[in-house]
C-alpha cells in the first residue's frame, strides 16, 4: 500500500547497494527509507564521431566487458554534449546498484585506460539531488511503500528567501578546554536549556550518561567543539575499550565515517584540514573544523548545503570551491551536459601582443595617501559573477572584444548556474536594506549573504583554474577585461561629474566632492555608472573620514589595501592593518580597535582634534598595563601558521621554534596548522602555548610586545596626528589635488585668498593634505 508523507529531506547516502534516505516528517517523526537509484557513467572512444557504437571497436569491447560484470548495468549508445567538443557519441552505462558504481568504475578504468570517461566521479547525493531536483532540508512529498520510496517531489527550491524551517533537534557537546592545550576534565552537554557536565575520568558512567542522553533527546544535529579532531575519536576509543556501543549514528546499520587529515597548497597558502568524523542518520558538525564557521555559523552552513546540494556534513567542511563545482555539476547533470572525468583542455595559442593585453587581473590603483573627509565608497555588487551572468561568460560560449555587450546565444553553463544564486543574494541584500534594525530575519539574512558571497567569489577563480571541469582561461580573462572596462567607465562617470577619485580597487572606488556628504548626494553618480556599465553598483557608505596608509617600507609609496575609516553611522571599516591580521596578539588588536572606536566618536573630521588626546591617553594606559604585567598571557598569544615541515626550515621562524618545543612534548603540528606562542626573553625567544607546564610571567619579552604595540598604534594615530597638528604630509607632492591645477592652455593664475583663511580652513587643508 502506498503512503504519502510530507517533510524535510534530511540526508541521503549510499548503503550496500543503493541509497538510504532520511526524512524529518511534518508529524515530528524521523523516517528512514531506501530507494533504488541508478547512476550513469559515459565513455567515449578515440573515434568520437562514430555513427554507431559498433563502429567504435574499443567501446564495443567495453560493452562486452561490462555485460560480463557481476554488477548489473543497463547499456545503451547515446549522443551527449561535451562542453568543449560539441555532441559526442558515448556508451552509457547505467549502474543499477549505484552504491557499487565506484567499485565498478575503478575496474573499468584499469581495463580500459585509453577511453575518455564522463560523469564518473560525481557523488551519489549530488546525482540524487540533480535527478529529483532536491537538496538538503528541501520540503518534499514522498510516496512510499513500506520502507521503499516510490517517488519524491520537492515542494520548494533552494532560492526561497524564507523557507519553512525544519524542526531540527540540536545537541551540543563541548570539552571544558581546548584539547590541544590541556587535558579536558569534563564534557558539557547542552540541549535547549538543559545543561550537564559529565566528568571524563570514569568512562563507564560517562558512556552510560551519554547513551541515555542520546536516547532521550535523539538529536538530529550534534554540534561539537573539536569533535572531529578530538571528542568523537575519544568517545569511539573508550567505547571500544569498554566494549560498549554509543548510538552516535541513528542508522545502526552503518559505521561512523572517518576521513583522514590532509594538508594542501591553495592560492599561495598552505591549508590544513583536520580529521573528520561524519555520522549516519544524524549530522555531526565541528565548529572548529567547519569552513568559515565564525563568518556565518549554522545558518550559513545550512545555506551552503541548500544551494550547493552537498550533504550538510560535507557542506560544512568543504571549501567554497568544491561548493561551486557541485552547483555546476548539478546544472550539467540536469541539462544533459557531460562532465569530463579528466579535463584535456589546453589554452588556445595567442600572439605575444594578445597575451600582453589579456593576461591581466583587476585594476588596482595606488590610493592618495593620507586622511580624507567625506568620502563615498562605492562598489559594484558581486562584480565578477554579475559580469558572467549579464554578459554570458562561460567556457563554451565564444566571444570577442570587451564592448560590454552580452555574448549572443543561449546562456552557458556558468551563467546558468550562477544566475539564481546571484539573484537570491541581490534579493537578500536589498531586503537587508529595508528590514527594520531589530527584525529577527536580519542575522539570518546576513549569514546567508555571507555564505553565498564565498561561493560567488570562488566561482571566478574556478573559471580560470585549469583543473576545474568547467574552467577556461579565456573566459577568466574575459571577466577581468570586462571588470577593467566597467571600472574605467565608472571613473569617467565620476570625473565627468567633478568627483575626485581617491582610490580604485577592482570593483570599488572611493570618491570625494566638496559638499557631498549624504547618500542622496551620490545617487546621480550611481545611476550614471549603472547606465554606462549595465552593472548594479551600490553605495558601501559615506565615510566621515578615511585614511589610506603608505607602505611600511617607503612612506611615499601607497599600498592598495591598507586603510581604515569611519562611516557616517559611526561604524568602522578596516583593511590590511594589524587588527585584521590573524597573527596579531589579541591585546594589540584590541588596543588598535579601541583607538579607532575612540576616534569614531568624533562626529566628523573637524572634531578629530578633540578625541585625539583621549586616544593618546588610552594608549598610555595600555602601555602601562603591558609594562606592569597586567595583561593576561592569553591576550599576548601570537598565532602563526606553520608554512612547511619543520625539517625544511633553514633558519626556523618563531612559529617553527614553538613547534619544536611541542614536538619535544610529543605533539604533532602539520604544515597549515596554527601554532600559538608567547615571545619570551633569552633563547629560543618563544614559548609554545600548548606545552603542559604553565609559562612563567617573568620571562615574557615585554620590550618586544611594546614594539609591536607601538607599531600598531602608530599605524592608526600617526596619520591622525599629522592631520591634527599639521605635519609633514602637507609637503608631500603626491597629495597635491589635481583639481586645483589650471590647465596650461587657459592661462592666468589661480587666485587663492590667503588672507581670509580661517583657522578652521587650515585644519581642513592639513587633513586633506595641503591644498596650497
Amino acid at each position, binding site marked *: 500500500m502506498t503512503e504519502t508523507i510530507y517533510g524535510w529531506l534530511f540526508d541521503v547516502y549510499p548503503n550496500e547497494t543503493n541509497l538510504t534516505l532520511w526524512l524529518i516528517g511534518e508529524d515530528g517523526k524521523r523516517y528512514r527509507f531506501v530507494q533504488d537509484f541508478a547512476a550513469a557513467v559515459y565513455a567515449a572512444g578515440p573515434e568520437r564521431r562514430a555513427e554507431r557504437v559498433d563502429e567504435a571497436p574499443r567501446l564495443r569491447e567495453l560493452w562486452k566487458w561490462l555485460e560480463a560484470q557481476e554488477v548489473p548495468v543497463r547499456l545503451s549508445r547515446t549522443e551527449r554534449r561535451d562542453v568543449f567538443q560539441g555532441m559526442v557519441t558515448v556508451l552509457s552505462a547505467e549502474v543499477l546498484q549505484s552504491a557499487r558504481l565506484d567499485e565498478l568504475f575503478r575496474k573499468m578504468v584499469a581495463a580500459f585506460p585509453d577511453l575518455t570517461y564522463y560523469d564518473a566521479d560525481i557523488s551519489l547525493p549530488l546525482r540524487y539531488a540533480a535527478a529529483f531536483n532536491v537538496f538538503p532540508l528541501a520540503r518534499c512529498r514522498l510516496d512510499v511503500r513500506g520502507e521503499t520510496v516510490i517517488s519524491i517531489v520537492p515542494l520548494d527550491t533552494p532560492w526561497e528567501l524564507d523557507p519553512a524551517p525544519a524542526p531540527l533537534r540540536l545537541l551540543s557537546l563541548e570539552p571544558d578546554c581546548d584539547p590541544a592545550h590541556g587535558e579536558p576534565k569534563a564534557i558539557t552537554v547542552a540541549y535547549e536549556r538543559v545543561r550537564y557536565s559529565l566528568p571524563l575520568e570514569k568512562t563507564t558512567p560517562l558512556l552510560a550518561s551519554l547513551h541515555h542522553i542520546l536516547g532521550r533527546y535523539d538529536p538530529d544535529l550534534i554540534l561539537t567543539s573539536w569533535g572531529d579532531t578530538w571528542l568523537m575519536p575519544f568517545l569511539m576509543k573508550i567505547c571500544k575499550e569498554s566494549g560498549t556501543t554509543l548510538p552516535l549514528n541513528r542508522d545502526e546499520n552503518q559505521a561512523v565515517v572517518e576521513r583522514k587529515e590532509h594538508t594542501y597548497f591553495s592560492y599561495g597558502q598552505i591549508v590544513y584540514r583536520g580529521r573528520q568524523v561524519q555520522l549516519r542518520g544524524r549530522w555531526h558538525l565541528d565548529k572548529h573544523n567547519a569552513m568559515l564557521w565564525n563568518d556565518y555559523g549554522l545558518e550559513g552552513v545550512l545555506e551552503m548545503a541548500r544551494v550547493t546540494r552537498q550533504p550538510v556534513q560535507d557542506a560544512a567542511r568543504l571549501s567554497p570551491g568544491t561548493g561551486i563545482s557541485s552547483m555546476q555539476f548539478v546544472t550539467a547533470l540536469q541539462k544533459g551536459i557531460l562532465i569530463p572525468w579528466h579535463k584535456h583542455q589546453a589554452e588556445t595559442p595567442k600572439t605575444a601582443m594578445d597575451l600582453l*593585453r589579456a*593576461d*591581466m587581473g583587476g*585594476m588596482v590603483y595606488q590610493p592618495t595617501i593620507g586622511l580624507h573627509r567625506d568620502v563615498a565608497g562605492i562598489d559594484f555588487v558581486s562584480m565578477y559573477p554579475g559580469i558572467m551572468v549579464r554578459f554570458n561568460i562561460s567556457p563554451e560560449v565564444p566571444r570577442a572584444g570587451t564592448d560590454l555587450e552580452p555574448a549572443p546565444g543561449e546562456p552557458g553553463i556558468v551563467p546558468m548556474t550562477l544566475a539564481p544564486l546571484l539573484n537570491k543574494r541581490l534579493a537578500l541584500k536589498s531586503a537587508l536594506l529595508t528590514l527594520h534594525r531589530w527584525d529577527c530575519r536580519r542575522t539570518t539574512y546576513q549569514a546567508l549573504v555571507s555564505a553565498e558571497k564565498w561561493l560567488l567569489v570562488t566561482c571566478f577563480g574556478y573559471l580560470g583554474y585549469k583543473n576545474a571541469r568547467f574552467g577556461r582561461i579565456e573566459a577568466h580573462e574575459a571577466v577581468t577585461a570586462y571588470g577593467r572596462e566597467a571600472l*574605467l567607465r565608472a571613473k569617467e562617470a565620476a570625473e565627468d561629474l567633478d568627483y575626485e577619485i581617491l582610490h580604485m580597487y577592482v570593483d570599488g572606488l572611493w570618491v570625494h566632492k566638496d559638499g557631498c556628504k549624504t547618500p542622496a548626494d551620490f545617487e546621480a553618480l550611481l545611476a550614471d555608472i549603472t547606465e554606462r556599465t549595465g552593472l548594479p553598483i551600490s553605495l558601501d557608505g559615506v565615510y566621515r573620514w578615511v585614511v589610506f596608509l603608505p607602505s611600511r617600507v617607503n612612506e611615499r609609496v601607497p599600498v592598495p589595501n591598507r586603510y581604515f575609516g569611519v562611516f557616517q553611522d559611526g561604524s568602522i571599516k578596516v583593511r590590511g592593518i594589524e587588527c585584521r591580521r590573524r597573527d596579531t596578539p589579541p591585546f594589540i588588536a584590541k588596543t588598535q580597535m579601541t583607538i579607532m572606536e575612540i576616534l569614531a566618536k568624533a562626529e566628523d573630521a573637524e572634531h578629530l582634534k578633540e578625541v585625539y588626546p583621549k586616544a593618546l591617553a588610552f594608549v598610555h594606559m595600555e602601555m602601562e598595563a603591558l609594562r606592569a604585567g597586567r595583561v593576561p598571557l592569553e591576550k599576548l598569544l601570537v598565532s602563526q601558521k606553520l608554512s612547511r615541515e619543520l625539517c625544511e626550515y633553514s633558519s626556523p621562524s618563531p612559529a617553527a621554534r614553538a613547534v619544536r618545543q611541542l614536538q619535544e612534548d610529543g605533539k604533532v603540528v602539520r604544515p597549515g596548522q596554527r601554532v600559538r606562542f608567547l615571545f619570551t626573553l633569552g633563547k629560543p625567544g618563544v614559548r609554545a602555548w600548548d606545552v603542559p607546564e604553565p609559562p612563567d610571567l617573568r620571562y615574557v619579552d615585554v620590550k618586544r610586545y611594546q614594539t609591536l604595540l607601538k607599531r600598531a598604534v602608530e599605524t592608526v594615530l600617526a596619520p591622525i596626528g599629522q592631520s591634527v597638528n599639521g605635519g609633514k604630509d602637507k609637503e608631500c*607632492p603626491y597629495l*597635491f589635488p589635481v583639481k586645483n591645477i589650471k590647465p596650461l592652455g587657459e592661462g592666468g593664475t589661480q587666485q587663492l585668498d*590667503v588672507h581670509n583663511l580661517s583657522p578652521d580652513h587650515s585644519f581642513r587643508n592639513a587633513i586633506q593634505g595641503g591644498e596650497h
Partner: protein
Amino acid sequence: MGRTLPSATQVFLQEQDSFARFRRALRRSDQLALDDLFTSARQHLAAAQYASHALPFEVFLLSMLLEEHKEVMRLRQQVDELISRQK
C-alpha cells in the same frame, strides 16, 4: 597566481634593478634623487598595467615626467601666490 606574464609591479622592480649599476656609480645625493624618480613612477602602476605597452620602461619614464610636471605646476602656483601676496 598562475600568471604567464609578470605584473606591472614585477616589471617595474625588474627595470629598477637593471639600473643598479648605474645607481651605484652615482653620488649619494643623486642616488636619492633617482630613488625619488622611481617612487614617482610607482604612483601609476595601475595605468601602466592597463596600457600593457610592449616597452614598459617608456611608460615608467612618462610616469616620472608626469609627476615632475605636477610638481612644476604646484610650484608655479605657489610662486604666483607669493607674487600676488607681495603686490
